[in-house]
């Protein structure tokens, strides 16, 4: 065996550990959370990919509902009325999603998000699959080198996500004015709920927490930023919940617009 216990581990080639034979001695269902996470993420990715390339039923013309998966729609390929910012871009080939200016950044924002990193490192990369459960990889370098060192650009995706959330908010406000003027329907509630939760998710981001005040050493010299940091910190404790809730509301919003737009269901109207 190796050198005696008590020898400095940094000097010792192979310290003697006790009983390392099994991968884990955990007796609970430690495999369940990573399994559910994988299923949840896979469901969203498949749904979002299919919908992003469908190019149909993303705009409910009567009530001006636009699904977030097609916002902003800036191409001549977009159906009439769905382009809230004009169509500065010509026709797009079918293999490019109509929201190609926002989707990659939103994907990047979530891929580099500190919560999602935990989620997929555990459930997909299995590093580790659960606490105190051995990982299958022989080597581990973490985020010290390419490509994972690129996770450090998270803040830039955050800045772009702020702009896109503003655009989604604008879409949700415009949806209160349909073809028959001002009105409120269930679709408005769904769009609004989605936008509120998107703001919660975006503002609860760890990079946002850092930018607003986390990077300061003296809160007392920056009372406004300290106040902002305090509020963002409160949201930040719910970042994981917002991450999952927004995946749900994005799908729900898109599905609702899809069903209304295709005529499968009629929008439930409260006013006009």
């Amino acid at each position, binding site marked *: 065996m190796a050198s005696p216990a008590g020898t400095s581990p940094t000097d010792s080639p192979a310290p003697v550990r006790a*009983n390392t034979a099994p991968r884990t001695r955990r007796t609970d269902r430690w495999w369940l959370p990573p399994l559910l996470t994988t299923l949840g993420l896979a469901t969203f990715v498949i749904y979002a990919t299919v919908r992003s390339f469908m190019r149909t039923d993303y705009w409910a013309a009567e009530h001006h509902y636009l699904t977030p998966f097609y916002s902003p729609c800036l191409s001549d390929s977009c159906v009439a009325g769905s382009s809230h910012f004009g169509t500065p871009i010509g026709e797009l080939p079918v293999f490019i999603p109509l929201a190609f200016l926002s989707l990659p950044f939103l994907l990047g924002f979530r891929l580099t998000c*500190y919560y999602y990193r935990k989620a997929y*490192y555990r459930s997909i990369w299995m590093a580790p699959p659960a606490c*105190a*459960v051995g990982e299958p990889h022989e080597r581990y370098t973490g985020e010290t*080198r390419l490509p994972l060192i690129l996770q450090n650009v998270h803040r830039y995706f955050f800045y772009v996500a702020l702009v896109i959330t503003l655009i989604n908010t604008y879409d949700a406000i415009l949806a209160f004015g349909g073809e028959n003027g001002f009105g409120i329907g269930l679709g408005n509630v769904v769009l609004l709920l989605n936008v509120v939760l998107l703001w919660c998710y975006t503002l609860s981001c760890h990079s946002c927490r850092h930018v607003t005040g986390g990077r300061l*050493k003296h809160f007392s010299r920056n009372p406004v930023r300290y106040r902002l940091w305090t509020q963002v910190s409160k949201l930040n404790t719910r970042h994981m919940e917002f991450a999952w809730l927004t995946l749900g509301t994005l799908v729900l919003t898109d599905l609702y617009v899809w069903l209304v737009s295709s005529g499968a269901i009629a929008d439930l109207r409260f006013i006009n």
Partner: protein
Amino acid sequence: MAYPAKLRVWRGDTTSGELQDFEVEANEGEVVLDLIHRLQATQTPDLAVRWNCKAGKCGSCSAEVNGRPRLLCMTRMSIFDEDEVITVTPMRTFPVIRDLVTDVSYNYEKAREIPSFTPPEGLEPGEYRMQQVDVERSQEFRKCIECFLCQDTCHVIRDHEENKQSFAGPRYLMRVAELEMHPLDVADRVGDAQDVHGLGYCNITKCCTEVCPEGIHITDNALIPMKERVADRRYDPIVWLGNKIFKRDGA
């Protein structure tokens, strides 16, 4: 109501070891450490276990119960079924000395690699003045009882012995964060966090936070803020430019 609990305890030393089965009386309100002590008193007088306060404050009785890093004195028997076999093993990440006692000197070596609190030049002890609002962030980290459960559960060193050279572990990255956030500390710790203490190895899977008996938010309040500070310094050209233009050192 007393019942015979089924304990499976790792017994051995640096040369060999195995799990041994015992039946030990358990009474209402007891914790796993009580049973280990009863086992020691009645059946295995030479069983080695490190303990001290029995109140979750000294951090001595760290071990693994049914594979989960825990303080033996804070693990209630009531969370187990009466017929459940309770497996108690030493912390896996550190070299064993005997039975449930491990050699945690790795942690003290890593502690020594961190430069101590560095006040501004000319400021003598007794002259330190700071606002409560500036120190309360790092006060959370001072709740640490150095049980090393976070170090034990961290897969970076738990599954990869070779990483011990270059990774300080969550406890000591939290120590770096504590000093970095201290309003009177003037040492430059951000570069060292990445280069010397191995912050980049952390993939923020939060196991350290999950096992912390003091409930310290190690990942959210120490490790991620340090990663963001490293990003300021190394990976954010806008912050770098802003620091140059306004000649600031990080506010």
